[in-house]
């Protein structure tokens, strides 16, 4: 085969590979050198410098029972054919097929370093499992638009194989990979907002540019059974740190937290503290840190026996404009420290 050719491989399940229906879903992967099923449509879509070098066919059940291992097995079958591009599917709304296509593309990208494209219906479970790692084009529910879908897969695959950038998911109709990329838009945000609002009012399709987050719900822990013997810690995200900010806690999107001793201390001396938090006016707390961390009252309550004892350090970070994954990590680290220190409950004060 002459230089400059683009070598394309195709992955199909047993049904589209014309091995058989559900009764053949257990067949192991095999190589076909002749085009089969959708492969014949691929042949009609190739540019002169492109060649379909092989087709791998595998039963859906065989793949689904052990996807990672079978993906590796298929990659080894493909390796001798030196493909530049793998087209997997389209899998439409066939769940096991979609999952196999996703797993194979992900493995082939890593193991062979080649471009891979799949296509599925949006409800195919393969989408959610693999869209972050694999370019999965949006396809219909069934094979009615096979040729059009294959043409789009080849179009995207050619560019990926050539190392050329692929456009935005909305324009190219692939499932977002979940990366937010800074861009310069053609029109200012006010114009886009007015367009979006009018589309919404007219009942026309529109695309939000910011996706709402999905938060995992947290069940509240059971209340303290015996507060009179509990160890309580004072925790804040208001950025209170000892003068000089010894841990270098950032005032914006902090990546660190600190535990600062209050052992034997009954009140916080304003001269000993500063605030590392760029999101509020700290002057009232700088003049009296108890407005943020109520050590004075906590000590009184401790003396009165309202609770067992106060943990001998305050825990602090600056809770400003922090990404969720970072906040979650800080919270887990703090919780691990508190748990290890035998703390039963915390009083968390924010700003």
């Amino acid at each position, binding site marked *: 085969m002459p230089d400059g050719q683009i070598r394309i491989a195709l992955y199909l399940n047993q049904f589209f590979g014309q091995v058989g229906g559900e009764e053949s879903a257990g067949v192991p992967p095999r190589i076909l050198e002749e085009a089969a099923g959708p492969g014949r449509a691929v042949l009609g879509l190739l540019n002169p410098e492109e060649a379909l070098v092989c087709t791998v066919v595998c039963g859906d059940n065989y793949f689904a029972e052990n996807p990672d291992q079978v993906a590796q097995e298929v990659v080894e079958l493909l390796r001798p054919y030196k493909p530049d591009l793998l087209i997997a599917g389209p899998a439409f709304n066939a769940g096991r097929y979609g999952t196999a296509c996703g797993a194979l593309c992900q493995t082939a990208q890593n193991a062979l370093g080649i471009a891979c494209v799949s296509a599925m219906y949006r409800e195919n479970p393969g989408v959610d499992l693999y869209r972050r790692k694999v370019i999965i084009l949006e396809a219909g529910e069934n094979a009615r638009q096979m040729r059009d879908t294959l043409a789009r897969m080849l179009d995207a695959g050619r560019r990926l194989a050539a190392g050329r950038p692929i456009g*935005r*998911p909305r324009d190219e109709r692939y499932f*977002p*990979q*979940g*990366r*937010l*990329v*800074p*861009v*310069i*838009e*053609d*029109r*200012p*945000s*006010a*114009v*886009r*907002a*007015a367009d*979006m*609002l*009018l589309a*919404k*009012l007219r009942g026309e399709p*529109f695309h*939000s*540019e*910011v*996706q*709402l*987050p*999905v*938060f995992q719900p947290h069940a509240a822990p059971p209340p303290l059974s015996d507060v009179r013997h509990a160890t309580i810690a004072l925790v804040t995200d208001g950025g209170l740190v000892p003068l000089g900010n010894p841990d270098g806690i950032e005032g*914006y*999107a902090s990546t660190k937290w600190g535990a600062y001793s209050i052992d034997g201390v009954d009140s916080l001396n304003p001269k000993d503290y500063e605030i590392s938090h760029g*999101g*509020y*006016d700290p002057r009232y707390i700088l003049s009296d840190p108890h407005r943020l961390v109520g050590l004075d009252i906590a000590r009184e309550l401790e003396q009165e026996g309202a609770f067992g004892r106060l943990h001998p350090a305050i825990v602090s970070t600056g809770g*400003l*404009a*922090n*990404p*969720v*994954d*970072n906040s979650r990590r800080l919270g887990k680290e703090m919780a691990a420290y508190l748990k290890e220190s035998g703390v039963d409950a915390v009083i968390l004060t924010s700003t």
Partner: protein
Amino acid sequence: MRLELQVRRVRDLRIGGETRLDDGVLAVDVDALCSYLLEQDRRLSGLRFEVAHPGELCRITSIADIVEPRAKLSGGVDFPGVLGALEPAGSGTTVVLRGMAVTILNPLERAGGRGPVLDMGGRHKEGWSAQDLTVFANLHHLVTIPQLAPGVVGDDALNALRLAILRAAVWLASHTGSGARDAVESYDLVPVPDLPRVAYVFQIHSHQRPTVAGEPLLYGDNARHLLPVVLHPNEVLDGAVLQGYSSRGNYIIQNHPVILELYRRHGIDLSFAGVVAVVAHQTAPERERSALMAANLVSETLHADGVILTKTGGGAPHIDMAQIAHRCEQLGVRSTLIAWDLSSSDGAEEGSALFNYPDLDAIVSMGSNGYRLSLPAVERVITPEDDTSLLERAGAPMAATANQFVGVLDQFGGGRWATALY
């Protein structure tokens, strides 16, 4: 209420000679301007001036505010309740010097010679130009570097800077307002039936930083406990509204991008129903009260079908904006918001917004506040800093999050910078 803007274009800006605008070239007698400003406010002890031009490899640091030169010719006063008597804003004739701004630096905000930065030229590693990132890089700037009298610090200093830039902007426009006009713009909300009514909810301040006494926001009031109030859009464009001391671009309020866009489309594909001014609050009851009252004004007083909302300040004001939008949606008013995303440092989509009302499904991105921009070195730095060792550092390549650069995160709709989901 009809406002006429008589626009004179400024294509070049020079210091020296008599103050005049000839053939697009503005010459400024800075000695006369300096005397005037010192005469007006004893809190200033001196002023120097520099100019910066679009595309120039010039960095302006420690910016306190950027204002377009404008002066009333008839039918009102300049910045009522702040510079002038309390008279209604939004009517009459105003002369505008378009294509330039007066920019004032804060001599107390040195921060190693940097502080909030505006680069006029240079290309970023992403391929973006300075002009791609902020409209301010398209303007000729008359940069005003004040000295403060001994003992003038804190809020008093910020007040002196704010009044000085407003006075300078009015002075410039009133001293050059008599020549030929390049354009005349007219703003008047004539009723247009049978088009969807669109209101704008304008968050004018976030009390994350509570305003102080004398900090002029709304007709000179500090809006400390502002309840939602309906404004005519002309009032906003004509000096009734200013941002607080911590915001650095009142030019954007004078040329409010959402208001100008709704005006542009008024009678074409929508009917601009009016503006509701709100503030972002510190406490939940205030926020809740503001949300229900603002939504009621949008729905029941302005009879809007749709509403655009913006926020100002930092992260928390997204919540105030979202609560108003959610209440509007509950009243049957469709909403669109302009927000920044708070995505992870690795650009993952999770956690990109601070709210998750499912009915807020139309959000326009103004970019990411946490994205680190890398700016190339510049040839010239305009800064209040006079320590030359720091000066050199100030002109070096710099990397910082977007919120350190003036105008990049344009909260009122003027920016083209955004984040896109890939």
